[in-house]
């Protein structure tokens, strides 16, 4: 009998403790780059979806989404989020690592719980948690796939994004795998700036310069669009594989339909990690818990078999 009462009272106690946590209001600020590229458009879309989904599921939660066009604007918005919106939780996708470290540290200094997404800060003590996409796998998986598809020998040309540490990380991961395949030659790697037009021009010049290209690592689905157009225009048949990246919906659709034999695989680097980061942070805060210091959203190889799991037709990306 005693034990039953004890069990019930423990249960009641647990419930009241639980509800007292749930009663605590969480005002969560989300600070992200503005939609100037289809990837950041995806980030904005997923952030707004997280706001809609999470506010509906948790009455004690308020999410405020702010987009910024550059680093100084983002720093100003952090001030507004703190003083005007009185946030107690922040999820930030920093425009630049170095220039936002200090502003984020100040926000954290005021007692705000901070989750940093994707682009890390230069001083990790300015954050409580870090959630990121897997840039090493973004370079490594295509390299492994291409090496296998090419049977360990042939010529590759590569396109890089905008000169950044993130791009270096991906490219270094790619080349380090290729070093294990001495039969494969990387003819050149030029910047296509994650832009269709620039990729088109760079690929046109590659086609003029190299008579035999077996595969292209376009390193981004937007750049792959320009690359494919340039190949079609030159009527070249030597290129068997064009590997994009990031799992944009158009590229995943092509993969599902099998409508272009040169598109055989992709690697996920979905802006959905923004959604995951907001959800994980909000749920941890509502439950009064902390996130692990580092969470890596894994990049995985997308092929025809699993493509439907990565197809989000409503997202702009």
């Amino acid at each position, binding site marked *: 009998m005693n034990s039953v009462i004890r069990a019930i009272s423990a249960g009641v106690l647990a419930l009241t403790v639980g509800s007292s946590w749930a009663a605590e209001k969480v005002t969560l600020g989300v600070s992200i780059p503005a*939609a100037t590229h*289809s990837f950041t458009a995806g980030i904005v*879309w997923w952030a707004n979806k997280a706001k809609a989904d999470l506010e509906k599921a948790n009455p004690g939660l308020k999410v405020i989404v702010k987009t910024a066009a550059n680093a100084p604007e983002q720093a100003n918005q952090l001030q507004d989020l703190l003083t005007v919106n009185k946030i107690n939780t922040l999820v930030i996708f920093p425009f630049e690592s170095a220039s936002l470290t200090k502003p984020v540290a100040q926000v954290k200094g005021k007692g705000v719980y901070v989750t940093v997404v994707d682009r890390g800060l230069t001083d990790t003590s300015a954050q409580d948690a870090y959630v990121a996409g897997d840039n090493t796998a973004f370079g490594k998986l295509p390299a492994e796939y291409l090496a296998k598809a090419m049977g360990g020998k042939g010529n590759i040309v590569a396109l890089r994004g905008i000169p950044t540490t993130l791009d270096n990380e991906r490219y270094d991961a790619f080349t380090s795998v290729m070093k294990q395949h001495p039969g494969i030659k990387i003819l050149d790697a030029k910047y296509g700036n994650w832009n*269709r037009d620039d990729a088109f*021009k760079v690929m046109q010049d*590659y086609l*003029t310069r190299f008579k035999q290209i077996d595969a292209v690592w376009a390193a981004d689905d937007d750049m792959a*669009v320009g690359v494919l157009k340039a190949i079609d225009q030159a009527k070249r048949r030597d290129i068997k594989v064009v590997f994009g990246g990031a799992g944009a919906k158009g590229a995943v659709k092509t993969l599902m339909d099998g409508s272009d034999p040169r598109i055989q695989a992709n690697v996920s680097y979905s802006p959905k990690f923004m959604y995951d980061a907001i959800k994980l942070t909000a749920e941890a805060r509502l439950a009064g818990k902390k996130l692990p210091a580092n969470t890596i959203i894994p990049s995985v190889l997308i092929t025809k078999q699993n493509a439907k799991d990565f197809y989000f037709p409503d997202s702009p990306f």
Partner: protein
Amino acid sequence: MPPVPTDAIPSWRRALSHLSGFGPLLGLIALCIAGAMLNPDFATVDNLMNVLTRTAFIGIIAVGMTFVIMSGGIDLSVGSMAALIAGCMILFMNGVAAGTPFAASPMLAVVLGIVLALVLGSVFGAAHGFLITKGRIEPFIVTLGTLGIFRAYLTYLADGGALTLDGTLSDLYSPVYYGSLLGIPIPVWVFAAVALAGGVLLNRTAFGRHVQAIGSNEQVARYAAIRVDLIKLLTYALLGLCVGVATLLYVPRLGSASPTTGLLWELEAIAAVVVGGTALKGGEGRIVGTVIGAILLSVISNILNLTSIISVYLNAAVQGVVIIIVAFMQRGR
């Protein structure tokens, strides 16, 4: 230029000053020789056509920009304007082909899309001209404002992603970029036609003379009974029309428009005009120079893509150095 006694300046200096007008051409020739030495594929017909075709967009806009700069104005919005026109065209053509607002054949949809591009360009340009002349706002400020407005609207229309032309329309429309006549790609023909028309307009018509007069001294032009406001408005409308022409050639290339479309085109067009020998302060300039300037800019990036002797991080630096050298070769004009 007042007549100078021939013995007052040494003959070598005269020869040099005569040569200075050929700065861009000499620069281009020097670049081509360097390109051919660095990579034998540079001098092939295919590569030449690639470079000329991709120059067409900037070149056509730069021809229009020559008029605006010669009259003493500037337009910073052309890249954003091209992006917005491209986005509107794609949405409109997709809509027409799908039966909204009215059903039409795909061919008619493409033709209407082309008309829309030309109309939109002219209207945007005329709006600039109106705000600058009647509104009395600096051209720099008006077009800086519309630079933001145009690109923001495109981003809004595209929901931050890309607007893509429907498959059948894309197939039907693509020859406008990818097709060729007598072995020369269509955009190169259009570029040549626009440049020729620009040259005739500048050198053989009253309009061209008035533009030059306004650029060298607006007050004097006013006293000479030139309708300064109207001429200025027309230069912006003409530039807008050129942007429309460039866009209708651009859309079939990738069949899409995104927030990165036409980024920094304004600077490339202005650079082509200035490298080509048109004075940024107005009054003086040549269409031929602009055409050479535009080709020169494309050739630099083409050579950099065809070689790998310089770190890719330094590409922009090489472009900057060449632009400054060419400008140096024709200083004092």
